[in-house]
């Protein structure tokens, strides 16, 4: 019961994130929404692991959180500088 309520709550907030991701309007809204969606996925995995008595799921949640974080940074950098490598042309060192 508790599991159903908890996952329903997370699912509803994921739905909201999804709506924002589809509605936009700006690209940064969408990125933020997708990032939030990913965070909620981590939460969902953690909840599932907790209530099913499988703490091993936390490893998966951790890996997903990591990928989500780096993915968001990569997308942000790409939209800001239009490249993943060299933001200011050839001579610059290409860091943020």
């Amino acid at each position, binding site marked *: 019961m508790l599991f159903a309520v908890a996952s329903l709550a997370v699912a509803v907030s994921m739905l909201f994130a999804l709506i924002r991701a589809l509605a936009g309007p700006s690209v940064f809204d969408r990125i933020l929404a997708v990032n939030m969606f990913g965070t909620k996925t981590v939460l969902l995995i953690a909840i599932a692991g907790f209530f099913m008595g499988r703490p*091993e799921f936390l*490893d*998966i949640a*951790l*890996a997903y959180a*990591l*990928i989500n974080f*780096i993915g968001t*940074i*990569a997308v942000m*950098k790409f939209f800001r500088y*239009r*490249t*993943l*490598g*060299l933001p200011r042309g*050839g001579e*610059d*060192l*290409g*860091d*943020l």
Partner: protein
Amino acid sequence: MHDHIILRVITKLLMPFIFLFALYVQFHGDYGPGGGFQAGVIFATGLILYALIFGLRSAKKVTPPRVLRVQLALGVLLYAGVGVVGIMSGAEYLNYDVLAEDAHSGQHLGILLVELGVGLTVSAAMTLIFFLFAGQEQ
């Protein structure tokens, strides 16, 4: 450039933990979820994060593509080489029983080495792929 100080600091804080986590997944693979492929990807993720924040050039200084290519080949050789040890000692290819005194620890050692090979190859391949696509001139 110092205008993204938060990202820089967070990255520096996070990187060791990412690598630690990768190693955990690598060597914990025979007890929990994980294994060479997942560990390799997580390890590469750390390098990719570094390249994203501190630039491709400094990332290439840390892990030159040439070294990555050798690492990639070595991983495959390690994988195949473990199997060859089986042949050398008269058993079948990839038979790990002969790696140690008793079959059980032999299996354990064998799968550990094979997963290490997979991890090396995957992390090198993922990083190389990122370098390739990020290095495109616009």
